[in-house]
């Protein structure tokens, strides 16, 4: 079998914050009906994770489930575990209305690290989201657009964010993040 490669092979850049392509990341799309009795239990049985509330992400160990829409979630796990995770989910959800697909190779992920106020500013330059610390904090999942492409982001801790997008626009997203965090472009909007 050929050797899997992430979209930008871990390219990184240090500007106002450090932007890095996160490398291979297991990602699984899960769709189903939250209201259906036993659905959440079946997901928990297969993944060990509780379904997150609307617009949130729950993480444990090396796994995470993010809310994507009222009937869709994004499950993250180590790249090499995705295949087995899909099989486990399909077995646990057999007989129910659901969709489970390994989308690891269809996505790209970026990490942003740096000063919290500066990092918020970098994101706010690209996405039409209120990033004031009182309005957006760690644990919240936000699907939105970054300039001209769809993307989603969340804060793993103050000063640390992750961004996911389609693999086909990975270079565009990386360039956007690098320009938004280029030296000399600080605005200081979220500085206390």
């Amino acid at each position, binding site marked *: 079998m050929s050797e899997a490669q992430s979209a930008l092979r871990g390219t990184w850049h240090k500007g106002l914050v450090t932007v890095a392509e996160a490398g291979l990341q297991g990602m699984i799309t899960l769709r189903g009906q939250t209201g259906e009795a036993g659905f959440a239990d079946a997901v928990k049985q297969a993944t060990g994770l509780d379904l997150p509330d609307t*617009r949130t992400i729950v993480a444990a160990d090396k796994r995470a489930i993010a809310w994507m*829409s009222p009937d869709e979630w994004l499950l993250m796990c180590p790249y090499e575990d995705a295949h087995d995770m899909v099989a486990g989910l399909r077995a646990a959800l057999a007989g129910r209305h659901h969709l489970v697909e390994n989308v690891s190779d269809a996505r790209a992920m970026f990490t942003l690290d740096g000063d919290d106020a500066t990092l918020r500013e970098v994101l706010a330059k690209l996405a039409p989201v209120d990033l004031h610390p009182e309005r957006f904090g760690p644990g919240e999942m936000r699907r*939105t657009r970054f300039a001209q492409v769809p993307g989603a982001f969340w804060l793993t801790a103050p000063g640390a964010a992750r961004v996911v997008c389609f693999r086909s626009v990975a270079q565009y997203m990386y360039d956007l993040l690098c320009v938004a965090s280029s030296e000399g472009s600080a605005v200081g909007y979220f500085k206390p």
Partner: protein
Amino acid sequence: MLILECPCCGVRGEETEFHGGGEAHIKRSGPGSSDEAFHDYLFAKENPRGVHFERWRHVYGCGKWFHAARCTQTLEVFGTYSAQTTEPPQDIKDKISARRPGWTWREFA
């Protein structure tokens, strides 16, 4: 700037995160209808200055469709509501009446 709140996921987002889907509550005229009714269904759209009802999709967010009642003149949004309805809910109509007494739109008032 137009600010909409998606009733499906609760995000209060700016217009560019959404995509307009045209006039709301259109009744389809298809096979068996008169030419005039079919013509009106396709082409005769409301274009008011003031109270208007539209379909919107949270295209960069949760992906769901919903309805919005807003003022085309001031960009005031009276409310957003489920896509799974054929007419504006009473609470939305009440909110519009409070802000624009005497409003009408197609058969609604």
